[in-house]
Structures are given as C-alpha cells and as structure tokens.
C-alpha cells in the first residue's frame, strides 16, 4: 500500500497487507517509523474498531478506546513477538482488553452514580457495524462455530463479543458458577482445532 493513499479510512482494499506484511509494519513501527505505523493503522483500524465498538457499544467511548489501543500499539510494538501469534491478533488482543476494561470501569462507576449517558447512547451500532464482511475467513469461522455446542458458542460469544466475565456468562446462561470458564475454554479449543490455529 502506498502511504500517500491511506486505504479509505481503514477499509481494507483487495491488496490489503498480508499477515507477514503487518508484522513487518509493526516491527518498523517499533523503530519509530511513523509511515509504517500509519499503514498499519489503515490496514487494521476497521477490524480493531469493529471489535471495540461491538464490546463497548457507545460510539464515542469506542473511539476513545480505539485511539488508546493504537497509542498502546505504537508504544509497545517492540514487545510483539511473531512466534507467539499474528500481528492482527496481537492488535485485537490489546483492543479487546482495553474495551473490556472500559466497559467494566464504566459499570463500576455507574453502580455509584447512574450514568444515564452511557445507557442512552448504547447499541445503535448494530445498524452500522454490519458491513460484517463475507470473507472466506469469516465463512470458515461460521462453519467452525457450527461445530460447537450451543452452550459453548454462546459462552464464547458472550465473553468475547459481549465483554462479560465468566461469572456473568454463567448467570446469563443459567450455568452453575464456575462452569462457564470451562465452556469458554472447551469452545475455544474446539474452534481452534476446527480452524487449525496454532502449530
């Protein structure tokens, strides 16, 4: 990709960088290469923001979280280790952690003083979000998800996309406390094996 023509506000074009390209851009970012970082942003921002928005729901807060995520990515790029996973998953992991932390701290705050703000602004995203792409990968994931038991799938999705703790997931699914974490793990492992992540 040409840094002078950043990919349409982050919408990946057909010639989007491969995983190895992203890792290379991350490595160059670690050395302070701002152009590489801008290209990394352009290639990944829609995915990262899509996930953050899915978890956080509130668009304004989601934007803050996405911004924090990329500043963190820039700061810690040198700590990315290609042996431990793809660059995209590393970015999404950072974004997810920040999104979940945001949701939980907002909840803690609203237990003390009601933040009507966040309640009123919630949701809305389902309208916009679903430029959810029909890529091969997404199809593969959907097929693999069909292999999970209903409970496993729901537990994994509530935890990852809903941002709930395993204790909350247990309550939502009427599972005994302490069993949701097992469902989540079993579900992820089955998904991993179906998709062939790992080595």
């Amino acid at each position, binding site marked *: 990709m040409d840094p002078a023509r950043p990919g349409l506000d982050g919408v990946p074009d057909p010639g989007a960088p491969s995983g190895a390209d992203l890792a290379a851009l991350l490595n160059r970012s670690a050395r302070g290469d701002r152009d590489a970082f801008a290209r990394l942003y352009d290639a990944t*921002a*829609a995915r990262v923001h899509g996930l953050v928005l899915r978890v956080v729901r509130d668009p304004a807060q989601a934007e803050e979280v996405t911004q924090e995520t990329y500043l963190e990515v820039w*700061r810690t*790029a040198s*700590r990315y280790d290609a042996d431990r996973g793809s660059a995209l998953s590393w970015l999404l992991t950072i974004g997810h952690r920040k999104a979940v932390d945001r949701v939980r701290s907002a909840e803690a*705050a609203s237990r003390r003083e009601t933040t009507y703000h966040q309640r009123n602004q919630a949701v809305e995203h389902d309208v916009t979000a679903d430029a959810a792409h029909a890529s091969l990968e997404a199809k593969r994931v959907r097929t693999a998800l069909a292999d999970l038991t209903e409970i496993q799938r729901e537990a994994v999705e509530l935890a990852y996309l809903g941002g709930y703790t395993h204790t909350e997931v247990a309550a939502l699914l009427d599972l005994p406390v302490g069993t949701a*974490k097992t469902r989540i793990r079993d579900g992820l492992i089955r998904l991993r094996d179906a998709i062939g992540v790992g080595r």
Partner: protein
Amino acid sequence: MTDHTQHSDGGDQVSADLHGLSGAYAVDALDEVERARFERHLADCAECRAEVAELQETAALLATDEVAPPPALRDAVLAGIETVRPLPPATGGDAPTDHRRARRRWRSGRTLLVAAAVVLIALAVGTAWLRPWAEDGGDTIATPSTTERVLEADDATRVRQDFPDGSSATVVLSRNEGHAVIVTEDMANAPAGRVYQLWLETPEGSMLSAGLMPDDPDTTLLLEGDAAEATAVGITVEPDGGSKEPTTDPIALFPLEA
C-alpha cells in the same frame, strides 16, 4: 470478587484450577483478581502461555465486524504518537527465530526485568545512603529512609505483576515497618487527564488512598498510609488530582498475604 487469599493455599489443586482459566483469560473474561492470579501463573507456565496465545488467536477470528473509525480518529492517533516514545525491546535485539529461541528470549526478558527491579531498589537504597541529610528531614512519609527500610526489611514480601504490554509492578510490603513500596518498570503513563492512584485495602474491605503515582515508567514509590494490616494494594485510574474513593475497578490488584 473472589477471595484473594486463596492463591496462598498453594498446592496442585490451585495450579490445576489456574490451567482451566486459560480460555477465560484469552477472552478477558476473568475479573481483576483472577486475572492477576492467572498472570502470575502465566509467568511460570510455558504450557499455559502457548495455549493462551493460540486461544487469543482463535478468539480474534470472531472479530469479524469491520467498522471504519472516523477520519478524525486517524489524525488524532497519528498526532498522538508524536508524543509517545516506543518502548525498547524487552531483550537484546536478535531477530525472531524458532520457538526455543523465543522461549529463551522470553525467559531472559524476565530475568532482565527482575535485574532491573533489583537495580531500581539498589538505586533507591543508594540514593538514600548518599544523601544522609535526607534521612531525618522531617517525617514526610516519602523520605527515602522509610522506603529503604521497607525494601530491606527482614519480613519484606514481594508481590509482582507482569502486564501483557511488557510492563511490571512489584509491591514490597513490610508488616513490621507498616509500609509498602511499589516499584514499576516500563509502566505506561496514565491517559491524559487521568492519574494512577494507589489504594490500600483494609481488612474491612474499604479502600484507603495511598497516594498518586507520578507519570514515570520506572518509579519507586512509598505508599502513604498504614500498610500493617492491609489486605491488598490496588491501582486505579482516576481523574487528575485523584479521588476520595476508587471510581473505577483496579487495573492491578496485589493481594497481600496476612
């Protein structure tokens, strides 16, 4: 919140329970205390590290929504990085290679961090020693001498947390001295307009402010207040100037053994 003295029971049962948290950890479904416990476990369990990495990779596949953030966000990010210095690599600069190398690198990274913490402590002690006049200079709680006494106390215990971004923090507690010290390494600055605030948890479960942390990635700081009976040290993100009581869940919690 779960019982945070649980981890000190030790034993295989606890360890087996911890293994089972890998999936929930990978999707950030642990509460703060469990997360802290699991991260301590992770530091010593290569098997769990590998599993977590794979499960994170797997979970990321579920992130299929694509929503382009507004163009202004790109500008803000690119402007923002101008003021943020990228961290140096955790270890020497060998290129990523095979697995065994990576593991070794990871391990030596830890060693380096520990070494760095030791150096920090030595510096703190050394500074106090070089500046004897600071020693009796009134009893503002933050005199180096108290810090030094805590760090060197016979009963000093250390609770360390490593964070996924490569940073770490260690709380050193001396019940005899009645004080705790926190030593951070590579800690990110608090977000603009916010500050990291330290808390001591009392046996009754309330949180007492133990002071604000400076925006300094590597800091050694004496916690304000009496830590003789504290059951945990927490760090929260608060609005500038700090809060009377925590307004957010802790970003880190260090359970202290009785």
